[in-house]
């Protein structure tokens, strides 16, 4: 139980805990959550953590993220834990793990990749080829991307 709550508990939804300090906004970006969605989201940044020293926390009210959705968080915040909340209780808790495939979230940085040709039905798709640090290969042209490179081309 948290001793002091910076933001109140949520009734139902997802708490993403143990995000490395300063990465919370990137976590929201990679999840594709922004203010325009009307989603109730609480961001806690730079709070003390026994594991990480400092950490960020993201609370998403009213939305339970699936394991498929949360895998992508591991690219930004490999230490993150996901807590699924119902009636103020944690009903599921797990550590994020790197996704083997990421579909549709990032653009390929290769200007002559078929996925960047207008009108062609090729979906952006990346395959994890290295874990530490993560390297993802475009499934069409094979070009490698670091997470930083991918974050610059978020769809």
């Amino acid at each position, binding site marked *: 139980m948290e001793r002091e709550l910076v933001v109140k508990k949520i009734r139902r939804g997802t708490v993403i805990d143990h995000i490395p300090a300063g990465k919370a906004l990137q976590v929201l970006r990679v999840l594709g959550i922004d203010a325009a969605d009307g989603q109730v989201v609480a961001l806690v940044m730079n709070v003390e953590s026994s594991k990480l020293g400092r950490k960020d926390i993201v609370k998403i009210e009213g939305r339970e993220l699936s394991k498929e959705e949360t895998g992508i968080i591991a690219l930004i915040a490999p230490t993150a834990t996901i807590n699924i909340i119902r009636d103020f209780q944690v009903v599921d808790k797990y550590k994020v793990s790197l996704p083997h495939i990421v579909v549709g979230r990032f653009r390929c940085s290769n200007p002559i990749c078929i*996925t960047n040709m207008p009108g062609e039905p090729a979906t952006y798709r990346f395959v994890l080829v290295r874990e530490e640090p993560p390297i993802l290969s475009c499934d069409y042209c094979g070009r490698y991307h670091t997470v930083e490179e991918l974050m610059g081309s978020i769809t």
Partner: protein
Amino acid sequence: MAWRGRDVITALDFDRRDLEELFEVAREMEAYARSRRDVLRGKVLAVAFFEPSTRTRLSFETAMKRLGGEVVGFSGPEGTSAEKGETFADTIRMLDAYADCIVVRHRAEGAAKLAAEIAEAPVINAGDGASNHPTQAMLDLYTMWRTFGRIDGLSIGVMGDIRHARTVNSLIQSLSNFDVSLYLIAPETLYPRREVLDLMERRSVRYVVVDNAKEVIGKLDVLYVVRIQKERFLDPLEYERVKGSYRVTPELLSRGKPHLLVMHPLPRVDEIDPAVDSTPHAGYFRQASLGVPLRMALLYMVLGE
């Protein structure tokens, strides 16, 4: 993996058993490369070259005709519906309705993979951007296999623009199935891409990267040469300074082993001195001529009954 109906998209999709099986069939096809063997009668090959090509397109067309099949297609987007703005995907859907197999060359990287996802007919990648040229790699390895009777144990130098040449990318992918030593010879600006370095590391390929052929020429069984294009250099003076170091001359070859085989995917411009043509080292014309039996074998294995 079974060959029939198989797409040929990247060299990595073919392991050494696949390649050795292909080479055995290609060896048989050599006897028919100047005659006919009507094993694909009634089959239609669509040759969709959105980018110009001489050797690859003509060797596919010749191979199909020698096997008794028919060829339809185009060379360059001019006069096709691509010029009117039709998507690549729609052109492929149309060809899929007409033909039993589609050979594709396109400037977009990953185009052949997309074509394979769309088409029910098998798709053969005849070059996509700087990415892949798997049938050239098959031909290159076949030339080595025919010349030396093996690929394992060979020391192979690859010289020139190893950063941007799709033939080199596919060649290294294919060679990673065998126990070879690679010597990558290029100016620093054209060193291999991280994707290629990573592949060699993951597949435990022995390799060194050097910037001068003279350092390693004595160790090589094969010297595979690709062109260095002036446009790749930000500073034209840099190009003028380095280009001579990546030119194959009789003088360079005199330092090599007597059986050293010089290969080149062609066309060459000035990276091989014409004086090399008449030496026993010149393997590039034979390499080009083996393109027909190799592609006959490939088409037969993908399309044959």
